[in-house]
């Protein structure tokens, strides 16, 4: 089972979190982790705990905000949302990734 999954690529988790928040709006840590797992179609082996240092990292950079709120099941949870600089960051990071992906694609294309 494990060998078919790939580990989260270094540096991609941040962009995944930002895109998730862009798509879903404010969300708690568990929600973000589950969403990433779902979107990746369970091909990604995400250690859910790693989401929290990543969230803290993004918050320290000012790309996301957090506030305590109530979950859909009436639980006190911390909700994360994108900040203005976070939105800008998504654009930049996306461009970066597209460039890298395109470059990689050229290498991988049959010659």
């Amino acid at each position, binding site marked *: 089972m494990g060998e078919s999954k790939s580990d989260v690529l270094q540096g991609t988790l941040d962009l995944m979190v930002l895109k998730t928040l862009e798509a879903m709006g404010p969300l708690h840590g568990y929600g973000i982790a589950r969403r990433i797992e779902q979107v990746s179609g369970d091909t990604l082996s995400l250690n859910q705990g*790693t989401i929290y*240092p990543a969230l803290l990292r993004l918050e*320290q950079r000012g790309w996301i905000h957090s506030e305590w709120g109530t979950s859909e099941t009436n639980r006190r*949870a911390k909700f994360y949302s994108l900040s203005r600089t976070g939105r800008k960051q998504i654009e930049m990071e996306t461009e970066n990734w597209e460039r890298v992906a395109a470059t990689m694609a050229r290498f991988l294309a049959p010659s």
Partner: protein
Amino acid sequence: MDTLRTLLSRIASLFRSRRLDSELDEELRCHIDLAVEENLASGMSRKQARTTALRSLGGLAQTQALYRTQRGLPWVDAMMQDLGFAVRTLRKNPGFTLVAVLTLALGIGGNTAMFSIVNGVLLNPLPFPEPDRLVTLSESKANFARGSISYPNFLDWQKENRSFSAMATARFSAFSLTGRGEAEQVEAEFVSPDFLPILGVRPLLGRLIAAADNEAGSGPVVLISEGLWRRKFDAVPNILGQSITLDGRDFAIIGVIPANFHLRVPSFRDRDVYAPIRRWTNPLLMERGAGLGMHGIGRLKPGVTLEQARADMEQINRSLAATYPDADHGIGTTIIPMKEEMVGDVRLFLLVLLGAVGFVLLLACVNVASLLLARSAARSREFAVRTALGASRGRVIQQLLTESLLLGIAAGALGLLPAFWGTRAALKLLPAALPRAEEIGLDFRVLAFTTAISLLTGVLFGLIPAFKSSQTNPHSALKEGSRSSGGSHHRALATFVVAEMAITLVLLIGAGLMIRSLTQLWNVDPGFNPRNVFTFGLSLPPNFEGASPAKIRAEFRAINDRFASIPGVTGVSQAWGALPMNGEDDQLFWLEGQPKPKSQNDMSWFIDYIVDPDYLRIMQIPLQRGRFFTRQDDEHAPLVIVVDEVFAQKFFPGQDAIGKRIHLVYNSDKLAQIVGVVGHVKQWGLSSDDKQSLRAQVYLPCMQMPDAFIAMSPSASSVVVRYEGSLARAYESIRSANRQMSAQQVIYGDQTMESLVSDSIAERRFAMILLGAFAMLALLLACIGIYGVMAYLVSQRTAEIGIRMALGAQRGDVLALVLWRGARLALIGVGLGIGSGLAVTQFMRSLLFEVSPYDPATLAGVSLLLIAVAFLACLIPARRAASVDPMQALRTE
């Protein structure tokens, strides 16, 4: 930008870690709950749901650790942990901690005290604006590098120079202050108007001396010191314009000089009164060739170097010499930076002492390092556990360094106490030896220094033990009952003992050489007997100002007779010229039969002692040939002089000086005949006798002084008195006799001749006392250190000793074994110490007096002392080793 933000946020989180921890806990709890709910919904059992949730999270503890690493600054966290651990460890070993902290506190305190002295005297800028541009000025002549400036020359210098933004001159004088309580002698300085402004002095009240005050014919004005204002005027605010009676004349007070103004150069002291220099009305003031004890100060223009100023002055002096060949032939200007003038003499002393106290600190470090090392052997199991649990070597070193830094800082804080007391004790000990003593204190720079050496100390003594300890092999250390300390520990400890011995010996050699120098100095014959002699200044009542010379002479005769009649007083003499070790005075002359030299500057000089017939007996100067003065050598008799042996040899080599005659410049129409030859007196202190190559000494009778001189003496007389019995009683009798003669006749500035002699070697004595104290401290530290190390080594070898004894070794054998080990280390240390001592004491060469830096007696003496102390320090552990019960020792093994 983002990184900065991250850093700030990380730092901020350091201060609220507890709240953030609980927030994270809550967040994770919520995460797991949500996961469990989802798993339950998908049909898992409650237990399975929980396990799966925890697994997909990746472990609670790991997540928390990961999160904390992101959140704070890991090294700060680690440091705080180490610090907490260090505090606990040190608290658990109060004995060790106490010894270590006290040892270091003494070392750091000594260094702080010494540094605060060095800082105050050498490093602090002078307390004047732009002090680097301040210089002192004097006039140089063929024989005199630092002679008096003549006022007309000064005016020309001031006018012609292009190097100084300002130049000023001053002449010391003294006034009798009357009309305000008991009459009093006050010290005065006649100054040119620029004098105080050059030094940036601002008056406390009123104004300084203006150029107009210095014009001939202007009204008499003075500035008074804050001290005089408080003492004599009760610090009344409306002092300005009030008059003060000095030498019987009224002066208007124009300002008050604050008490914090000090100018510590040899030719200037703190004065009570400052008057415009033209107020000194003696016609000699305007004579170009006159030497009246005037010295100058100057402020260089910005950017002008000393060399440029010297060249500038040289050119001016050449043109002065051309214009006034008689008076100014061969004159020059000596320019010296003011700071150098203030501290030049003591710089080397202080640096040597700072070096010595640095050695003491090094010794304290070695001591604590060896304590730590010995202790770390006992702690090796702890380090092994830590290493086994995954602590890296660097992490263990960091932990140990935290401990030693903590010790260092604690010691530094505690060391401020001995530093404070030490500085005060040093100042009390010998303030005379230290210029700028009032500027010594614990200021910001001193505290920074203490902090720095505390940290440095912590690293210094912590590094080797930390390094050694981190090498512990966890496997062998954890093995049951194994010996924990390896040979490398023992080698390091042995090195420490050797280093301690060597450092201590260097200090002992330094102190020993100083003590030898001082003993030599005390044995120097000053040429007179300072015991039971005191001297004081005497100023006649103001009505003697301008009195006839006959009246003044009669008054001095009456004073001498009155004082001499006091029981316990065995001799009284005026001393108007030089006094040994207390000021100098000189005269020009040429020999009978020689042509009078064209310029005064080509004449010969002698130091003049203008005295009464009793003087020789009072000072107990040996009479070698002929006779001294008698009362018959008075103003009506032919002029007579008595010369010292140096004069006789210098000017009449191979002849009999007695009967020869010389021309005295101040009295040149008469010839003075030599009637006696006496021994040479060490004029400038015990340690030097060739200042300004002016050594020839001549005695002149007071009563034969020319009338012009007699007219000046009422305000400037010194008296020497020989007494029997109690000094206090003799002095009090003199005082009361003086009061009976006149309420306005003032006695001031009393000093014993012995204190004058000992002041002349004050700096050396200061250095000796401190070096001696440092050396004794070092000896004590070394003793403790050697004892500690030997005791530790013995305890480590208890089992081995037990086996030896079980195999038949005698007590004596064991004793010899341990002592020999100590002796070997001591001998190596002594060898190294002598080697480095010889190199280090080179720097002391100029502080020594008739003792070679290689003095074999000193080297042998201190080496033996150190070996003896080391032997004693080894003896206790050795005896303990010898009393080991073999059975007991083997059982504990």
